[in-house]
């Protein structure tokens, strides 16, 4: 089932949680809502579920207006961040819950419920824990029980709020891969909320980057990572150096250094303030200017621990800069704190955002 959001707005008192949100989720898609806490991503997910009502705008399920449809009638599955497993029920009873509360005419007989519950528990590889209580399970197991419970009512849409947020790193990796396989298997339209860019990029078909109640960019993981639409997205997805400069007559000036804009990836025209974004591994350190645009900087510190050498510098005009250099190149350069060097953007990956 497809989901469409039109001009959604939601405020809590004076706080604008969501402003003018428009989004389409295609059938069978696995979509990530990515953002910092307070960006409105969870509120948006709760609006899709019907747990919150938008102040303005519409929610359409499969083209039909569902804005005023109650939670019960939306047929959405919602996995809560802390799972919200019913503590007084066994794993089996938790999963059976949705089937047992169905109206009498739709409710399967107990034998059928048992069959379906065991099938789901087998799907999430937890059938051997059917008689346990949630308090006796590990975090990862609870997560999978919560998913099985949600799938039991055969929802048309699956919504997950920070599905791996409460788990430790190793379990998170495993579950992420497992969830991706599961999605490929059952192909249910899914939306999940996360603040972890790696998780969003690895798992989702498309990523929605949110900031301060607005959508910054919608795109495939590749698009949002390699062609970020805004400085925020660029900064949020991976390390980046942001330089504040200005645009004059088609050239970007960082201090006194001019950089040709037509070589820049993002379009920038006219005059005014601009932000230049450079990823640390897309800057080259050279010891003397070689005719191409570069700017002077002073080495502050060097950290050779790790696959790449992290060099911290300060540009002539005062901005801090981080550059990642390969160990071989670093040995060639033979630089130490205090050294004066030049930084050259690797041309084809130059991003300029006007502000």
């Amino acid at each position: 089932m497809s989901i469409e959001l039109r001009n959604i707005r939601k405020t809590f008192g004076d706080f604008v949680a969501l402003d003018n949100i428009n989004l389409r989720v295609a059938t069978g898609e696995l979509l990530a809502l990515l953002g910092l806490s307070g960006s409105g991503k969870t509120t948006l997910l709760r609006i899709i579920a019907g747990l919150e009502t938008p102040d303005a705008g519409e929610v359409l399920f499969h083209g039909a207006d569902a804005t005023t449809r109650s939670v019960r009638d939306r047929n959405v599955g919602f996995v809560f961040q802390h799972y919200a497993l019913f503590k007084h029920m066994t794993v089996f009873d938790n999963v059976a819950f949705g089937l047992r509360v169905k109206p009498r005419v739709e409710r399967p007989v107990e034998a059928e419920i048992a069959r379906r519950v065991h099938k789901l528990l087998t799907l999430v590889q937890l059938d051997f824990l059917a008689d346990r209580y949630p308090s006796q399970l590990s975090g990862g197991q609870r997560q999978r029980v919560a998913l099985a419970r949600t799938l039991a009512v055969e929802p048309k849409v699956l919504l997950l709020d920070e599905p791996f947020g409460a788990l430790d790193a190793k379990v998170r990796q495993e579950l992420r891969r497992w969830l991706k396989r599961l999605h490929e298997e059952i192909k249910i339209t899914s939306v999940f909320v996360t603040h972890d860019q790696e998780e969003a990029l690895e798992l989702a078909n498309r990523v929605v980057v949110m900031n301060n109640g607005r959508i910054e960019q919608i795109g495939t993981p590749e698009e949002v990572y390699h062609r970020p639409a805004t400085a925020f997205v660029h900064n949020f997805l991976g390390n980046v150096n942001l330089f504040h400069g200005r645009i004059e007559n088609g050239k970007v000036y960082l201090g006194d250094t001019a950089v040709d804009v037509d070589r820049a990836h993002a379009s920038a025209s006219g005059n005014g303030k601009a932000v230049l974004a450079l990823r640390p591994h897309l800057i080259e350190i050279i010891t003397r200017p070689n005719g191409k645009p570069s700017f002077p900087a002073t080495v502050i510190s060097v950290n050779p621990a790790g696959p790449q050498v992290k060099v911290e510098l300060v540009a002539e005009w005062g901005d801090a800069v981080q550059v990642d250099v390969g160990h071989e190149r670093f040995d060639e350069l033979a630089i130490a704190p205090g050294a004066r060097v030049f930084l050259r953007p690797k041309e084809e990956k130059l991003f300029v955002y006007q502000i």
Partner: protein
Amino acid sequence: MKRHRVLPGFGLTIGWTMFYLSIVVLVPLSTIFLKATSLSWTEFCVDVLAPRTIAAYKLSFGASTAGAFVDSIFGFVVAWTLVRYEFPLRRLVDVLIDLPFALPTSVAGITLTALYAENGWLGRWFTPFGLKVAFTPLGITVAMAFVGLPFIVRTIQPVLEDLEPEYEEAAATLGAGRLQTFRRVIFPTLLPALLTGFALAFARALGEYGSVVFISGNMPFRTEVVPLLIMSKLEQFDYPGATAIAVVMLAISFTILLGINGLQKWAGRRLMAS
């Protein structure tokens, strides 16, 4: 288990604690059991199994159960209302719930008696139906319900406040209606607290003296609860008889206390782990 003690004062504080506890609680409590052992088995049984005693126990248990039951129903509604809804004077009502804890029992006793007497403010509404409240088991139940109410409200209230909305939301997304959510999710979560509150209210009612003595009328076999029976034996200097009955009462009270502790451990194991 043993660790180096950085902080001083263990010897002093545990010493004073044990000394004071012994003098004030343990020695007096052991006296009654000591006294009981001086009774012969037949003496003991004669007092404990006397028809008047049995009648008092029946009345005490019956009225305490009824009182705690009334409290459970209304206390639940009150706690629910205080936690879930906004209404005028909510704060004031919340503060007033503890009135039965704070009001001296003799004051509660004479007030309830005056209110529920045949011509009292409340008693007169029962008279046309031929119902007498004061000086009947019904009056005793009213007094017991009065003293027990805060136990129910105050045990349910914090659990209800801590109940995260996401459990109810989860139930709703799974298709449960409001009533189903209450019956299958909310109520079972509150049940341990409700049972604890019931046990506390029941135990308090069982031992209650001050609020009951005035409204009961103290008629042997009819409106004499166990604490009143003990009192009348003491007034007649029948110490062996009073001791025998009191020991049984204490045994029951301590059993309830143990039961409550067990209940809370069970609930804690099952429900508290998140």
